[in-house]
């Protein structure tokens, strides 16, 4: 019945937020991965979420969330003059990734909070289901 759906909905959100945390970790880890070539430089990655509406009789009653794609940010890279850097190009320039560390930190907090909320939903639904199973017990 619908209890299974609810667990799946909360589970899908937990999976989606995990993907989001993964991209945040990757972006923060590579915030200083310089390169001498604009095309080879790391670019910040962002997941794109989308709602999956249920099919069948209760189609409108909400649905799961899925990660449609992980896109790379189109923000311009940071170009810095570092002639001593071993990867610097002929003009002595290196490219820094377009990772906004402050934005990544807030994104991380938002993702972990959303994850926790869905864990709570799952726990609450489980206790509802358990008390329903105890119905009529003396």
């Amino acid at each position: 019945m619908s209890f299974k759906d609810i667990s799946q909905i909360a589970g899908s959100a937990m999976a989606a937020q995990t993907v989001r945390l993964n991209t945040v970790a990757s972006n923060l880890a590579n915030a200083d991965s310089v390169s001498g070539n604009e095309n080879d430089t790391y670019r910040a990655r962002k997941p794109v979420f989308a709602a999956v509406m249920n099919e069948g009789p209760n189609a409108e009653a909400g649905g799961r969330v899925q990660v449609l794609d992980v896109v790379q940010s189109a923000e311009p890279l940071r170009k810095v003059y570092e002639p001593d850097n071993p990867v610097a190009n002929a003009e002595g320039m290196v490219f820094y990734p377009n990772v906004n560390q402050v934005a990544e930190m807030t994104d991380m907090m938002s993702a972990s909070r959303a994850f926790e909320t869905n864990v709570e939903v799952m726990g609450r639904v489980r206790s509802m289901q358990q008390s329903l199973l105890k119905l009529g017990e003396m």
Partner: protein
Amino acid sequence: MGINFKEATGVHADALQLRSERTRILASNIANENTPGYQAQDMDFAASMAQAQSSTDGGLALLSDSDPLYRVPFHPTSDGNTVEIGIEQAAFSQNATDFQTSLTFINMKLKGLAKAINGQ
């Protein structure tokens, strides 16, 4: 004079079904907290309850029979998402507690019936 279980449990049997349906809607809202363009939904509990009570065949009218209702957000967002997590969490918590309340009422009713059956 027989015991009618459908009458004994009263509104609470229908209420349980509607509560679990609403739990699903609210769980979807919470799950899609960060989905761009997602519009938070809810059900008109009183109207659904009245509909369930009026249907004489005992079949429960679920949300599919009526159009979904959408929440009006207090703060518009740039990505078109209308989920406000505090409101959804509060509604979810209240709904879960109401579910337990209905369950407790049914349980008490069944215990009363058991006592009557055993002649205590």
